């Protein structure tokens, strides 16, 4: 998919290059003025990003330029929920004023790599509602990912070049007190991001944690290609910004460590965790044969049973879940929360509809883009015709026709530009659908944290009851023997110890489960609230955009209709 996108860039560049030549023919058109000459130069640099499908577009690369212009004097472009959409009598004029000289062809190009803060827009701080709206007052955190560099793994490289990797400079600006400082930067590689993501998933069960960018299992050749690196940089930036927008996670230790600690990332890596897998595999036979204690320690309960840690626990929980599903009786503690079940259903439905809407939004953007392109090509064809008629004119009627044609051609080219601009904006708006679709993954994962915690509880309860009944049986048996049965008594003691441990584990597990349930609830509330606001904003932005550009396009054509009105009486 990446390949084809890039091909699109190159093709687009060619199309636009030749259009540039032809569009220059309109320079003498009195009505175009400076606005178009500036736009044209901006357009060439803008064009590639505009053609990216929404899934890949970085709001910063496609022109934030437009946002700047809405409030060229706005000192703080951070909080855009309310300032982007003014309600003037005609949206056409207020929102889409001609580009001024100072603008930011440069800032737009650097916008993605740590440059212009001024080219901020609501999307840069993540679509999940800007920090200020989550009650933090003037909390501010701004992360930029830039400056990818190749580095070499110092450890044994028998094969030279095999252990090359890329690091990125991660710059943070913030006024949040929990951070030590207001501006700092570190170098991190993608592996560190995976680590961060894994550790967060463990510590923040039940939360809707934004999903990290995919690992790409490709050869190192591809890894070092510039386009890949750039796309990854963009994805990383988006990811970190989303994390920063999460009211709880932004203040997490893991996140802070990631952003601030120089040198090696001080978080246990997933390979460390995976090494426990070996331990678990070693433990299993002993557990099965009862040589070591097979109870779950309380401190382990706060994490789901992973293949890595404790295979036996995993098997038990698996058995429990089968019993839940297929056993005749109700599980010891069932998911009874009706509200939750309804919400889960709702989230499933939402995910489906979001996916569908996101797809159709993409198709709409493409159709708009095609319309604009063809309109432009039509305009250029007529410009050529006009030139031709003028050059070869033998009759005045030809000159008159050439003049009419020129008006139409000019209008078509203008309309085509408007379509292009409209589309660039539309992409940004509708991209929110895509953002939230991505978030649904996080929701699912948070819900599954809950299920697995519940399963742990259920398993422990079953375990407990079976331990207890074993203890009872043993006690009953040993009480029949006068003086006691030394070996049985010992066994009972052992069992009672296990029961105690298991009971503790059960309490911990229940606490954990309740904690996760509460996290789910607050997160769901937050998600609904923020999504509500963001979607309404999106709709409004989308609509205002459409209205504004439709008005502009209508004006352009109305002018031509006026100019050709003498023919009206002739038409049948």
């Amino acid at each position: 998919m990446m390949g084809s996108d890039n091909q699109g860039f190159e093709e687009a560049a060619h199309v636009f290059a030749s259009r540039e030549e032809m569009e220059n023919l309109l320079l003498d058109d009195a009505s175009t003025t400076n606005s178009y000459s500036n736009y044209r130069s901006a357009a060439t640099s803008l064009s590639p990003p505009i053609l990216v499908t929404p899934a890949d577009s970085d709001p910063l690369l496609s022109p934030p330029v437009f946002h700047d212009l809405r409030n060229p004097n706005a000192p703080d472009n951070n909080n855009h929920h309310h300032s982007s959409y003014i309600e003037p009598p005609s949206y056409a004029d207020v929102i889409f004023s001609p580009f001024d000289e100072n603008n930011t062809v440069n800032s737009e190009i650097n916008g993605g790599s740590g440059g212009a803060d001024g080219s901020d827009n609501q999307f840069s701080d993540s679509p999940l509602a800007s920090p200020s709206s989550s009650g933090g007052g003037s909390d501010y955190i701004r992360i930029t990912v830039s400056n990818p560099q190749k580095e070499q793994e110092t450890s044994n490289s028998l094969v030279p070049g095999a252990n090359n990797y890329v690091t990125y400079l991660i710059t943070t600006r913030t006024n949040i007190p929990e951070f030590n400082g207001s501006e700092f930067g570190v170098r991190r590689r993608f592996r560190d991001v995976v680590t961060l993501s894994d550790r967060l998933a463990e510590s923040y069960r039940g939360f809707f944690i934004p999903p990290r960018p995919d690992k790409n299992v490709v050869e190192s050749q591809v890894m070092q290609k510039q386009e890949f690196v750039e796309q990854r940089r963009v994805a990383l930036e988006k990811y970190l910004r989303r994390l920063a927008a999460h009211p709880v996670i932004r203040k997490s230790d893991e996140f802070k460590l990631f952003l601030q600690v120089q040198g090696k990332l001080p978080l246990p890596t997933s390979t460390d965790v995976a090494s426990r897998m070996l331990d678990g595999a070693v433990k299993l036979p002993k557990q099965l044969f009862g040589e070591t204690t097979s109870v779950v320690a309380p401190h382990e309960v706060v994490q789901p049973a992973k293949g890595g840690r404790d295979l036996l626990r995993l098997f038990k929980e698996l058995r429990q879940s089968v019993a839940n599903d297929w056993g005749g009786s109700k599980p010891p503690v069932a998911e009874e929360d009706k509200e939750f079940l309804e919400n889960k259903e709702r989230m499933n439905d939402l995910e489906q509809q979001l996916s569908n809407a996101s797809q159709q939004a993409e198709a709409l953007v493409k159709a708009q883009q095609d319309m604009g392109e063809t309109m432009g090509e039509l305009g250029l064809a007529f410009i050529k015709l006009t030139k031709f008629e003028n050059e070869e004119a033998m009759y005045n009627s030809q000159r008159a026709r050439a003049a009419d044609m020129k008006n139409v051609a000019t209008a078509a080219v203008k309309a085509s530009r408007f379509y292009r601009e409209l589309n660039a904006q539309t992409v940004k708006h509708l991209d929110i659908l895509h953002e939230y679709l991505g978030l649904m993954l996080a929701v699912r994962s948070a819900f599954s944290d809950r299920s697995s915690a519940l399963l742990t509880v259920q398993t422990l309860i079953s375990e407990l009851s079976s331990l207890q009944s074993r203890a009872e049986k043993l006690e009953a048996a040993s009480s029949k023997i006068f003086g006691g049965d030394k070996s049985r008594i010992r066994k009972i003691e052992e069992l009672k110890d296990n029961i105690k441990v298991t009971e503790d584990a059960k309490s911990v597990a229940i606490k954990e489960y309740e904690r996760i349930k509460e996290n789910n609830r607050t997160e769901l509330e937050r998600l609904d609230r923020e999504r509500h606001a963001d979607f309404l904003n999106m709709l409004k932005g989308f609509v205002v955009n459409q209205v504004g550009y439709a008005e502009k396009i209508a004006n352009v054509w109305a002018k031509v209709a006026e100019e050709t009105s003498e023919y009206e009486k002739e038409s049948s």
Partner: protein
Amino acid sequence: MEQQRSTPGSSLSPRSPSSQPYLSVSVTDPVKLGNGVQAYISYRVITKTNLPEYQGPEKIVIRRYSDFVWLRDRLFEKYKGIFIPPLPEKSAVEKFRFSAEFIEMRRQGLDVFVNRIASHHDLQQSEDLRTFLQADEETMERLRSQETGIFKKKPADLMQIFKDVQSKVSDVVLGKEKPVEESTPEYEKLKHYIFELENHLAEAQKHTYRLVKRHRELSQSLQDFGKATKLLGACEGNALGKAFTELGVKSETLSIKLQKESYQLLMNFEEPLKDYVCAVQSIKATIAERANAFRRQCELAETIKLKEINLDKLMLTRSDKVAEAEHEYKELKAESEEATRRFQTIVSLMNEEMMHFQEQKTLDMGIAFHKFAKGQARLANSIADAWRSLLPKLEASEAAPGLYKLD
């Protein structure tokens, strides 16, 4: 539709000044007849006129496409030098041959075709036109099957082409630089203009057709988007859900508007452009005719020179073949004069035709441009209106965020 170019009083006696001469034709009521492969469309052709050559004030006949072709071919043969109006094209694609859109486009094209002939100063006097407008269906069928048309060459024509090729080759072989061709700078310019014009127009028409397609595509995606948005609205519920649903409804409404506009664009803009292209092709055919006439004239001039020399020789030798030779010479002379006359007619007709052609096209395109611009403006305005109507509701939803339910 077209400006009348008939000279007033051309066929009316001066004693009836009250009624201007008129001849108006309409092609209507397409009806599918026949079955399977042989199915075709027939049209009603209604003629209203006060011209004395016609059988009465109104006449209705039934005609099919090949009848129109017959008329076009006859006129092309008889009125060399005049740009015969173009016929709407045959459909290349079988499946669209009977689509409503195609039939309507063709009907319109045929109507324009006949009316252009009827309003052309010279063509309107054609007997073939009268036949076409009045003859009964049987006669028409008979005539139609006799006609070979310019695209079906008679053996004699084939021979002529052969000879032309031969003479070109021998000219080259004999060292005469070019085949005999008219080459005044003015005419060269005209020919160059016509050939280039066709290319430019074809390109413009291609993009216009694409634009029609884009309208249809946008219409479709708006519809799909509307549906998806409505579903999302149903899922969200509450104020946000309502907003989505209304957006979806508007989107579907606009989809319909776009569909309509795409049809308008096709009929009012793309068709005239296609027509323009065909008209230019018709001029090219006339150019070819003119070249033929020129060549004929030159050949005869050559031949006469040779005959003159021969005759003089014979006269000097007082041969008894003189009388015969003289006779031949006189015949040739007459033929040559006829050929020259024909050629010159074509030249002068063409000049007049070109001027009228340019004027007419400026008018035709002016109308097309106007309709195009109006259509686009109308579309854009309804798009703006539709979306704008959503804004107050969106504002209201934003103002009351607490209305979302936590279900």
